[in-house]
């Protein structure tokens, strides 16, 4: 395995970890191609693909015309031809022009061909709010994809997961929607020497009194909540879901059987958000263990607001603590 770049060493930003992970996939598999708007010379508007075109050439890392259906649709064709495309959607809100190709084609081609065609496509989507952006730049569209058959959906919360999960996602022979919490791009952490399993949730803080389930940008906030609650004598367990589809509810069900309380946190609009599915599954699997209703702390059922209001709209420490209090007081 000479010539392969090493796992990043020392404190690394999530952006750099993703870049290193992508670089490694390009090194390992000549069929990997990276495509999207501005991923070439510019290295992407978030610089996630920085330097990759320079090192791997324009045939493997390339700017596409400006059209998301075209990006996804041509990735399907590339995959049929045997390539392993990694598509970048520039911002969350821009995935919708490509939605038909994702839902009707990407998610079904393997099934329709009775297994003959594999579509190892990774669709990277920087998502979520909190960066002071204008409209359509702060959306959390994950639930649209978790509702769609044939798609895997994952999201990372740390540089280590970013590095390993992007490598695992690209290596997966099924299509994976890879959500990157853009406001965490510049957060730093160490990258683990070995990966964990891609499609498993992980308990990031053990606790006894109540379980907080979060993913992507909200994991950090959930951990903050646990710190504050600890000062108040409450021992919260925090789980990072990581895999949104397949949905790994084993860890959370086991946890809730112990704690009896669950607060689910995500940025996306509440109604039919992923929190709904988690609540529906957990109440079924842990019915007799529940000491309070499962509560959700989420974005409201409104369009994402102008950025001057986003802090009010997004789940934050106070809102989550409030839900923790309500659950424990039930």
């Amino acid at each position, binding site marked *: 395995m000479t010539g392969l770049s090493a796992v990043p060493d020392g404190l690394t930003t999530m952006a750099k970890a993703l870049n290193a992970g992508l670089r490694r996939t390009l090194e390992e598999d000549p069929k990997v*191609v990276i495509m999207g708007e501005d991923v070439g010379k510019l290295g992407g508007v978030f610089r996630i693909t920085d330097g990759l075109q320079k090192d791997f050439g324009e*045939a*493997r890392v390339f700017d*596409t*015309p400006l*059209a998301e*259906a*075209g990006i*996804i*649709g*041509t*990735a*399907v*064709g*590339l*995959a*049929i*031809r*045997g*390539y392993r*495309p990694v598509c970048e959607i520039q911002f969350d809100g821009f995935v919708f*022009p490509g939605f*038909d*190709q994702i839902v*009707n*084609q990407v998610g*079904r*081609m*393997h*099934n*329709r*061909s*009775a*297994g*003959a*065609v*594999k579509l190892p496509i990774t669709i990277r989507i920087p998502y979520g709010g909190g960066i002071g952006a204008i409209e359509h730049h702060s959306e959390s569209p994950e639930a649209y994809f978790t509702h769609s*058959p*044939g798609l*895997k959906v994952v999201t990372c919360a740390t540089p280590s997961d970013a590095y390993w999960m992007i490598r695992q996602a690209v290596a997966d*022979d*099924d299509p994976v929607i890879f959500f990157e919490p853009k406001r965490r791009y510049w957060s730093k952490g160490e990258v683990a020497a070995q990966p964990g399993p891609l*499609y498993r949730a992980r308990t990031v803080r053990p606790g006894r009194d109540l379980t907080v389930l979060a993913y992507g940008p909200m994991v950090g906030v959930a951990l903050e909540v646990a710190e504050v609650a600890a000062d108040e004598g409450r021992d919260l367990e925090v789980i990072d879901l990581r895999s949104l589809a*397949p*949905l*790994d*509810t*084993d860890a959370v069900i086991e946890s809730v059987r112990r704690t009896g309380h669950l607060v689910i946190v995500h940025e996306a609009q509440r109604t039919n958000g992923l929190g709904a599915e988690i609540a529906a599954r957990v109440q079924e699997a842990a019915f007799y263990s529940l000491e309070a209703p499962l509560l959700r702390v989420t974005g409201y059922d409104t369009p994402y607001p102008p950025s001057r209001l986003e802090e009010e709209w997004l789940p934050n420490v106070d809102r989550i603590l409030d839900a923790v209090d309500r659950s424990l007081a039930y």
Partner: protein
Amino acid sequence: MTEHVRAVQPEPDMVQLLTPEGERVERADYPLDITDEQIGQLYRDLVLVRRIDSEAVALQRQGELGLWASLLGQEAAQVGAGRALRSHDMCFPTYREHGVAWCRQVDPLTLLGLFRGTSVGGFDPYTHNFNMYTVIIGAQTLHAAGYAMGVVRDGAVGTGDPDRDTAVLAFFGDGASSQGDVNESFVWAAAENLPIVYVCQNNQWAISAPVATQSRVPLYQRSAGFGFPGLRIDGNDVLASLAVTRRALDDARSGQGPTLIEAFTYRMGPHTSSDDPTRYRLGSDVETWKLRDPIARVRAYLSRSAGFDAEFFAAIDEESEQLAVHVRAGCRALPDPSPESLFDHVFVELPEDLRRQRAEFADFVASVAS
């Protein structure tokens, strides 16, 4: 609403190499190096393909198929294009290219599965270099462009090696020309100079919408504004379809980029078996187009100018009867998928939560059975 809109008319320079009366026309720009025996083989294709179609129509009426999309009238456009392909070229059809499927050696029964409801596509595109049918209008044109990008990256264009250089053939309809996906495919094909040939079968109708609903200028003109050539052929002329597609595929393989071919033809039957065209079009149009039948002209040529005798035609009719038996019996014998197969091939490997759902389903099926 439509007073300003010019009707879409055949162009004076529509490429035609065989007139409806069966006369060969020579064109210096589309020389066709073909023997009469080869034309006889095309005739066979046309007849057999029409037979598959008419059997499927009958099977649908008998309740053996849920639906059928007939290619009646479009045999020449499809067979000519299909026979222009080399085996290693790739082809992306819509849901009506039974004639192309035939040329790609796809068993007609495979197609029937989709319409009978025993499969959702159901074939391995690699075996025949023929992709599954695509129902979402236009979507396949982007897949074709992407596949062509892969061909370019494989260095399989412009090498001069006929076993290596590869082209992609993408079909779509006149209605599909309005979809964003088709136009985006044109953007990609032009910007990346892809080895792709588009065949737009303009059969004059998108269900009940005449082509003037989509465009007031001939559709072949669409591509020039994207930066690649387009031309119109007599879509009922199998020789024109063969010669022009062959040349366009050659151009593609040799690195000269994409071409749009508009095959001007007519959908002689309903849109599908669910459709009732008397609600929206005149029988007299159909009569006019009958005079341009794609098969009659080849038969006229073969018997009048090439000296083919009754025996030749009888042999093909006999083959057609055998094919019909295969289609009829085979269709009825198509196995129903097993209930457990619901969960097959959703993913390459079934994830844990779907495995549980499958178990739940199996338990339920067992409980009802018991």
